[in-house]
């Protein structure tokens, strides 16, 4: 060891610094706690989804597509042209009869449709008969209906599960994507303000 000739006892350091250092872990823990609580609250209201993935299509035009109509549903088919230059923002909703969250969100779609919001539906990987039964039982909120049985158009949209809902503004640009069921809270906290903003 080098002989520095210093006093064998270290000079007393600033006691305040030491106290602050002791408090630092507490501060970090408190910060983490607040963050965690915010996350939990967000998960409760549905505004935060830990598995949520941002859509790559936000700010872009929807992909080009043309889907066949749902036979017997008495609704026109859906294609990309129907999403361009609408008089007001429109919703595109991917659903399937085999999808449980779709049942949960269906009343909200009915409510939007009754309020005059154009809701367009795309039946994802669903047998047309099953889609028909689903809509007969729960009501049909869709102004237009496309059938995407192979699920290829859905991949062009970057869909990774059903239900997913997209908001397209009057210029035909995708402004918002919701993965998972639309709840009352989602409508109030997210969708209604956006509908007003892009109206």
């Amino acid at each position, binding site marked *: *060891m080098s002989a520095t000739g210093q006093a064998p006892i*270290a000079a007393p350091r600033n006691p305040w610094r030491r106290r602050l250092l002791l408090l630092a872990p507490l501060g970090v823990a408190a910060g983490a706690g607040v963050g965690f609580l915010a996350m939990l609250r967000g998960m409760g209201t549905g505004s935060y989804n830990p598995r949520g993935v941002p*859509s*790559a299509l936000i700010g872009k035009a929807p992909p080009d597509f043309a889907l066949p109509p749902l036979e017997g549903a008495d609704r026109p088919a859906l294609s990309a042209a129907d999403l361009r230059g609408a008089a007001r923002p429109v919703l595109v909703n991917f659903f399937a009869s085999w999808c449980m969250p779709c049942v949960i969100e269906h009343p909200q779609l009915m409510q939007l449709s009754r309020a005059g919001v154009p809701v367009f539906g795309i039946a994802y990987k669903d047998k047309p008969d099953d889609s028909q039964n689903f809509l007969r039982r729960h009501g049909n909120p869709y102004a237009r209906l496309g059938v995407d049985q192979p*699920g290829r158009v859905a*991949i*062009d949209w970057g869909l990774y599960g059903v239900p997913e809902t997209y908001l397209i503004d009057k210029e035909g640009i995708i402004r918002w994507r919701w993965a998972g069921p639309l709840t009352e809270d989602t409508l109030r906290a997210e969708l209604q303000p956006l509908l007003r903003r892009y109206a």
Partner: protein
Amino acid sequence: MSLRAPLLALLLLLTAPAMAAIGDPAEQLRDPAQEERARAIGRELRCMVCQNQSIEDSDADLARDLRRIVREQVAAGRSDSEVMRFLHDRYGDFVLLRPPFKLATALLWGAPVVALGGGLLLILAMRRRAAATAPPEALSAAEQARLEARLKDRPSA
């Protein structure tokens, strides 16, 4: 140019049985080199449903669809980067298991460097402090003699 179209047609014809087998575990391309390429691409792509698996490893429906798309495009002669771009355009950075370095991913890529650098700085600071509070100097000869005298005086246990 004149050869390309019939060649492509032949290629598609050759891969047609593989297309038909999609949905089975045997969804591979006939050409082993192409299949190997498709697998290499698939291993770089995240399954959006299970999130911690590549589409090659996942049983999810969507992963199977994406595997099929990768194989179709490989069979159609697209390059690796073209296939990757096709999926990146639709699913964003998240679909890439090795996301590109950009502003949005800077923290992701930088975190290990920051952690390592921070750790090194901490170690350095601790070593400096240890050096500052080095053990006291060795006893001088006179001190050593006094100590030994004292110890000798002590009644032995």
